[in-house]
């Protein structure tokens, strides 16, 4: 039985649908997978609403969405062209991007496409920080990783984005 004052999952879908869809779209990169991810999130929301403590609904939804996304990634076969987080191609040399300015017009579509080039663990950390606006402590709780790892994934994720956006 849902707690007193807890919304129904349909109410969650209506009032937070745009937020959920945005997060899902930035995580998955395409509209079809974004819808599937939102559906999966709402499934988990239906199961979990009894235990929901009033607080940050968007924070709670973000945590569910990111974990559902990473669960699905782990379930799928990893494509050969995906670069793993410790792939040497992603180790930045000391002067990586030195004095490279971004193009005068970097469009949101460019940034979105660059996000999709990140390994998923890094993409999740950057999305939770810069799209959702969670603190490192919240991201640490969402992803069940230490705060130091949160910080390094965000930093490396941003550096990778920079590399993709400045590549000619």
């Amino acid at each position, binding site marked *: 039985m849902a707690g007193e004052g807890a919304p129904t999952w349909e109410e969650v879908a209506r009032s937070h649908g745009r937020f959920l869809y945005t997060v899902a779209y930035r995580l998955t990169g395409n509209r079809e997978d974004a819808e599937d991810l939102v559906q999966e999130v709402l499934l988990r929301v239906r199961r979990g609403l009894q235990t929901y403590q009033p607080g940050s609904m968007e924070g709670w939804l973000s945590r569910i969405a990111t974990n559902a996304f990473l669960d699905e990634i782990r379930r799928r076969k990893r494509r050969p062209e995906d670069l793993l987080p410790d792939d040497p191609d992603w180790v930045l040399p000391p002067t990586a991007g030195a004095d490279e300015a971004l193009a005068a017009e970097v469009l949101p579509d460019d940034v979105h*496409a660059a996000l999709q080039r990140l390994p998923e663990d890094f993409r999740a950390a950057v999305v939770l920080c810069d799209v959702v606006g969670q603190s490192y402590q919240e991201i640490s709780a969402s992803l069940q990783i230490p705060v130091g790892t949160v910080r390094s994934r965000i930093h490396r994720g941003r550096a990778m984005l920079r590399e993709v956006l400045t590549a000619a």
Partner: protein
Amino acid sequence: MNAHPGDLLSGMLDGELTPGEVAGVRAHLEACPDCQRELDRISETRTLVRDLPAVDPPFGFYERMVRPRYRWARAGVAALAGAAAVSVGVMAFAAPREPHVTPHVAQLVDAHTASASTSGDPISEMTPAAAPVSFKR
């Protein structure tokens, strides 16, 4: 000069450092133009992501959400759908409230597999597998 701050730069941009850590980073930056440049680049990239707009769901989204098709995470269940008892169990769980006949789970997955495609999706088609391309218009 103390050690290069590395990811402390992002920590500082995100307001996550202690005052002592911030002081240490600032002292380093005064003496290290490379790290100052890195800070500027990371800050610029951070702003680009933060400025991404919210995305409006497509037409019919809410209706589809409250009438789920269970397409995605249930693909693994389809492998078991040969067992009638399993598929009945899944169908009972997935049954929508409206009293209409729902197709067999395996048919749903086959239909999805046959039609699943990201063709026509501009973002998916823009993402290369190998060399990055320019997205400039």
